[in-house]
């Protein structure tokens, strides 16, 4: 039988790298299969994807041993162009994959390269835009679209090439929950519509598992798991490498069989297997938010980028000293616009922003920056040096910190984010997660009273995301007021003390997570996705489970109580 993708004892080491990126990988994917590959950052997932269309070893040079066969063609001997006509590869960051000035040109680019006749190109563009729900976007500038639309454009561009195999390397990583759901649906539909092979790489198992047939786990360049989804899940976690979604672990804890993949399945199975009692344990009191003096104050703030549509529309907001506030909301709701006012990168058209007693629109940014640390969403947009040491000292020098002290501050901030070993490293050698932490370290080194951080967990694996939240909590406990923009409702609920939801430039909600999480309608309206654990909790609300539970431990306790008393049938 011919496989669509076949790896025969494949190892690959990038030129100049100290260790191999892939080691003795054996893998065979049948035509029409839908496969999910997961694994921690740096485990070789992108390298594996790049092997399928010849980018490895033809563009990214190095030593490739073993054989990669794509529909029987040896990739070592084929050209990237030829392989690309068979394998449609979509990467993580949509913006970096856009090369033309209109959506239609973008979609036509691949077919043009393949020499498809003009009339056929027009047909394919229309078809691809239809399939990706981008009809009518033909003449839009791809760079002006939202992240989800951009990724849909990239997928349309691949779709129009009519590949036999779709390889998608974390296509959801840079999107907000609404975009993620949209693009995931698309990815699955696109492959199914034509019955093509789909090789999907993703960290977020919760969302993707229900759609796939086969699950692979990569660690340190080795394929450590490979099999049908239920079998791989039944084989348990691999510490630090593969953590099954909480819902699966919870199901295992109460011995549900077969293992459910969605909260709805879980609930149905639970009801089927157990006579459910009532959960009576009362929840711990919510810790009272710190009651410090206001350090940030927005008074009726209005702002617009083009003088027409309002990006901020009468925002009133007070942040007290010592709070850890999560700013939530869909893309384009005004979250980033809001926080940019805090450091004076934007000035209100009307109203007033006061930060630590100073009028933020009158104080120069570099002066506000002495007390307010600001971390941008994409670490690449804020790195200013070639290596780690220069990066951290840049701000310290700008602040006029004495040379003796700089040394100790660098050390401390690197320790704080766990990058001590990378002290001498070059920026280019750091992965995205490490760059994010370096960006954080260079801000922490300035010892700000307030830290504003814009989506620190985009594109990070679950473990790194959790680490960043841990760092933020430690900073907060040390007295720093933290404002954090995030799409990760689960982590935010676990770590932050207060939720602020921004919607169309207005504050839609401001309060505790215990109030926010059960408000499903509001969550939906702001395209905030409940973590599966909480979704399960809300399904079990009728049995006395608090619908705002987020942590695995709380939920496990509740489930034990609900089922333990009764025992299994």
């Amino acid at each position, binding site marked *: 039988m011919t496989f669509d993708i076949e790896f025969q004892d494949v190892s690959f080491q990038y030129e100049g790298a100290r260790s191999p990126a892939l080691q003795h990988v054996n893998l065979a994917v049948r035509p029409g299969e839908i496969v999910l590959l997961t694994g921690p950052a740096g485990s070789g997932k992108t390298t594996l994807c790049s092997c399928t269309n010849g*980018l490895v070893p033809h*563009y990214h040079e190095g030593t490739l041993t073993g054989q990669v066969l794509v529909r029987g063609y040896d990739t070592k001997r084929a*050209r*990237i*162009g*030829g392989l*690309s*006509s068979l394998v449609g*590869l979509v*990467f993580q*960051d949509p913006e*970096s*994959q*856009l090369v*033309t*000035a*209109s959506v239609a*040109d973008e979609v036509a*680019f*691949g*077919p*043009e*390269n*393949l*020499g*498809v*006749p*003009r009339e056929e*190109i*027009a047909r394919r*563009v229309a078809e691809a835009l239809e399939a990706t729900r981008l009809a009518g976007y033909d003449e839009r500038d791809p*760079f002006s679209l939202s992240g989800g639309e951009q990724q849909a454009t990239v997928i349309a*561009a*691949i779709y129009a*090439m009519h590949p036999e195999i779709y390889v998608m390397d974390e296509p959801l990583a840079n999107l907000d929950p609404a975009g993620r759901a949209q693009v995931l649906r698309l990815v699955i539909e696109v492959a199914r519509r034509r019955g093509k092979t789909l090789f999907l790489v993703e960290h977020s198992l919760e969302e993707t598992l229900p759609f796939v047939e086969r699950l692979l786990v990569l660690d340190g360049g080795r394929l450590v798991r490979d099999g049908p989804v239920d079998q791989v899940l039944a084989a348990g976690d691999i510490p630090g490498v593969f953590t099954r979604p909480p819902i699966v672990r919870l199901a295992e804890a109460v011995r549900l069989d077969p293992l459910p993949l969605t909260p709805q399945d879980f609930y149905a199975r639970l009801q089927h297997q157990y006579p459910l009692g009532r959960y009576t344990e009362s929840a711990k009191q919510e810790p009272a938010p710190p009651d410090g003096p206001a350090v940030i104050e927005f008074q009726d703030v209005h702002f617009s980028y083009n003088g027409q549509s309002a990006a901020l529309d009468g925002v009133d907001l007070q942040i007290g000293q010592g709070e850890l506030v999560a700013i939530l909301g869909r893309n384009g709701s005004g979250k980033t616009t809001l926080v940019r006012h805090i*450091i004076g*990168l934007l000035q209100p058209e009307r109203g007033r922003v006061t930060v630590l007693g100073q009028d933020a629109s009158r104080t*120069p*940014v*570099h*002066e506000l*920056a*002495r007390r307010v640390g*600001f971390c*941008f969403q994409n670490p*690449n*947009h*804020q*790195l*200013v*040096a*070639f290596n780690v040491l220069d990066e951290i000292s*840049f*701000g310290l020098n*700008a*602040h006029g910190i004495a040379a003796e002290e700089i040394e100790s501050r660098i050390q401390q901030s690197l320790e704080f984010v766990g990058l001590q070993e990378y002290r001498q490293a070059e*920026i280019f050698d750091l992965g995205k997660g490490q760059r994010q932490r370096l960006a954080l370290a*260079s*801000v922490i080194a*300035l010892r700000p009273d307030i830290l504003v951080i814009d989506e620190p967990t985009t594109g990070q694996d679950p473990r790194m995301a959790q680490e960043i939240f841990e760092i933020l909590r430690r900073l907060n406990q040390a007295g720093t007021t933290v404002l954090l923009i995030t799409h990760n409702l689960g982590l935010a609920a676990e770590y932050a003390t207060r939720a602020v939801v921004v919607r169309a430039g207005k504050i839609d909600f401001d309060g505790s997570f215990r109030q926010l999480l059960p408000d499903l309608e509001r969550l939906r309206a702001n395209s905030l996705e409940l973590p599966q654990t909480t979704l399960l909790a809300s399904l079990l609300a009728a049995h006395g489970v608090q619908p705002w539970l987020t942590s695995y431990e709380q939920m496990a306790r509740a489930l034990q109580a609900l089922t333990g008393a009764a025992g299994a049938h």
Partner: protein
Amino acid sequence: MPIEFQKGESTLHRLDARTKLLLFVGLTVVAVIIIDPIFIAILFLILYSFGARAVDRALLNRNLRVLVVIFSTFSLFQILFFTPKDAFLLFHLIPGREWIPVTVEGLIRGMAVFFRFFIVVLSVHLMLYTTPPVYLVLGLTRRERRRGLLRTAGVTVLLGAVFYAAARLAIPEQIARLPFEAGAQIALAAVAAVLAAFVVFSLATHGLPPEMGLALSLGFATVGILSQQSQRITDAQKARGYDVKPKNLIRRVRVLTALLLPIFLATLERSQDIAVAILARAFDYNISARTYRQELRFAAPDYLVMAVIVGLILGGLALNAMGVGNPTEQFVLRALGA
């Protein structure tokens, strides 16, 4: 402000990309030929009025304003140092020693120079503002399509006629000096013109190789991203407590160098991204057989614009040949009684 494509529906927007390229080349030639300040100023105003209808006037002005100083300097140089032998002297800038004479001719040509430069620059601006870069590149890129013999012959003869007329007007003495009798001279000049026309036409239709065309188009696309990128980096530096607009000049230079590094990194990263992105979309599949979604086709306004350009060039040459290429200068000199 980078000069980027602005969406629109104006006459200029609707012209074929190649017409706008020709317009730019043609106006550059016109700016060389026409030396009368009033003619050239009127031409500039006409072009500007088309431009103001095509793109936001504020944007147009902002980018032109920078050049006023530079071109005024050019004008000034022309006024001060263009002093033909028999020029009509107005006064000396340093009267005692009779240094630096200012003449009528210098003054008038100085004014003309200002507009001549501006016409060239404005035509480039308008081309870039009203044409998506991809189309410009497509206009320049080689096609595999074979052209009909009749069409090639037709265009070559037409272009040859223009060249011949231009040669008769611009270099009549050189043609007359050819060592043949009058009829043969004309025939020779005509054949040379047609030959030149054929070469130009083949070169123009041959175009750039697609690799180069695409490299150009990607380059154009990167310009916009780079300007965004430098804004982001500046913001990041401000947020780290860096004063990006210090009063001290030396520190300002240092600020610039601090900006260059991350921009360099960003550009490097972007070019890598683009390389991977286009390779993953089969860019090197078979580049000589590449097809194009958009077909470029000339319409009536395109031919009109070309005719106007040819008319201006030939007209300018004719006026020069008749010795009335600069009526303004002649009028002023006559008025002054020279």
